[in-house]
């Protein structure tokens, strides 16, 4: 499978925070969810791969092209949507059309109008009169109107009501129907990623803990609620981490199917992304 992005040893150092040695490859035609707690480095990672902040890396390439060498060309194929719109609220959709038609080589005015109509966005109204949902839909109209191949969303669904979020997830799904279209989506709302992500990248304290396919995660991980005896019985290789509660222990395990075969009566539930995140962030790793 071809990669949309290849990242090798990407590091960004701040005085009080380091995003350290991130190495991942993002395959074309997939939706990649980036998860992590607040301040884990998700936005720093996105800003670094976009060149918004300068970072150090051994390799950063998009669609096989080196980012440093072909930054401008690569950005023709990117669409980025942040948590809040960064367009001046005094602008109208019409003026954004004028501005971006002179910014993107592939800007498609007709397509833009089509999306505005589809999303019920007024062409002449100033953005300051738009609701948050309307602003976000306008961002999607912009993103889809210049033939972007890679859509990057940085907490774009945060603060939106469930109905708008669902509509946005549908838009993302439609976008990735084309196998050349890729989506990177960082989100606190992991339930959104449960619905659409093909891969999950987990960033914790500036480090990439894993990148796995969503299906593998669902298949391999499991949660067992038991007691201390059960925790002692399980092999430490199978335990990712555990959380001790007042009268029980919750254990996140890997090799769910093998464990289920051994302990046939044991109830093992499939975790959500949020639960996996919680175990990685707050759980204790069993020591030998």
């Amino acid at each position: 499978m071809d990669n949309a992005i290849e990242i090798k040893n990407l590091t960004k150092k701040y005085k009080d925070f380091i995003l350290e040695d991130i190495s991942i490859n993002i395959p074309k035609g997939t939706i990649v969810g980036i998860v992590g707690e607040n301040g884990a480095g998700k936005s720093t990672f996105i800003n670094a791969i976009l060149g918004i902040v300068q970072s150090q890396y051994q390799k950063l390439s998009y669609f096989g092209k080196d980012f440093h060498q072909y930054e401008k060309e690569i950005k023709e194929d990117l669409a980025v949507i942040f948590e809040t719109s960064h367009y001046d609220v005094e602008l109208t959709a019409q003026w954004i059309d004028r501005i971006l038609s002179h910014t993107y080589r592939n800007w498609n005015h007709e397509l833009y109008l089509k999306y505005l109509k589809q999303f019920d966005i007024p062409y002449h109204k100033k953005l300051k009169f738009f609701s948050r949902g309307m602003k976000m839909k306008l961002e999607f109209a912009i993103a889809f109107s210049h033939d972007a191949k890679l859509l990057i969303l940085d907490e774009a669904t945060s603060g939106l009501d469930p109905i708008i979020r669902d509509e946005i997830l549908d838009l993302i799904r439609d976008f990735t129907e084309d196998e050349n279209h890729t989506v990177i989506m960082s989100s606190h709302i992991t339930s959104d990623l449960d619905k659409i992500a093909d891969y999950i990248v987990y960033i914790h304290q500036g480090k990439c803990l894993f990148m796995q396919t969503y299906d593998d995660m669902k298949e391999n991980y499991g949660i067992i609620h038991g007691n201390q005896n059960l925790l002692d019985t399980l092999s430490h290789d199978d335990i990712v981490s555990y959380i001790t509660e007042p009268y029980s222990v919750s254990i996140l395990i890997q090799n769910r199917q093998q464990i289920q075969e051994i302990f046939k009566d044991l109830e093992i539930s499939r975790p959500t992304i949020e639960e996996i995140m919680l175990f990685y962030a707050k759980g204790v790793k069993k020591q030998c």
Partner: protein
Amino acid sequence: MLGIMIKDCYESFFIKKNLIGMIISSLCLIAILILMKSIYSMILIVVAFPMIGISILQYSMEQDEISKYDKILLTFPITKEQIVQAKFISTILFTLFVQLCLSLPIVCLFTGVYHVTSVQNSFFIWMLGFILSFIMNSLTSIGFFWLGSKKGTVVYMIFVITFSFAYIILHFAFTVDYLLSLPMYVIIIIGSILAIILNIISYLICVSIYKRKHS
């Protein structure tokens, strides 16, 4: 690059508060124009008017800061150098517009209708206004890129006050006739070269400030 210039233009002329600000400053100068029909007021207007050329940078930067526009701008297919270039070109074009469409008719009015000085002297004063505004743009641009729109405006005001004091001192120290008897062609050529050099240096400094801000 043209996209940035269109946005800057919109923010300067289509946002009510910015447009009102520009109209008020123009009205003040027009009031001077009507009330004072001397060569001193002509010099004041012709030199001061083009200095509002920098306001396009101030207004656009103010709006960019409010919406944090740089964040989305840096995802567009445009380099940091081109972003600074676009801001410089917008300022230069607006200064040229003011110079040709406002300052030049005023000079014609003072020369042809008020008869305050000769055509040749008027041309020199007009050229001097041209040069001074470009020198002013180069200096204040650094202030705006370095300190942002609010503090940059303070820097701009400091320069305006300095220029005004210099004008007053010149007014008391020398007569206008003496100043106009100086080798004007030489002053204009040296001034033009200085304005070009200062603008190139200013551009390079602004690019490095912009890159540093986004590193």
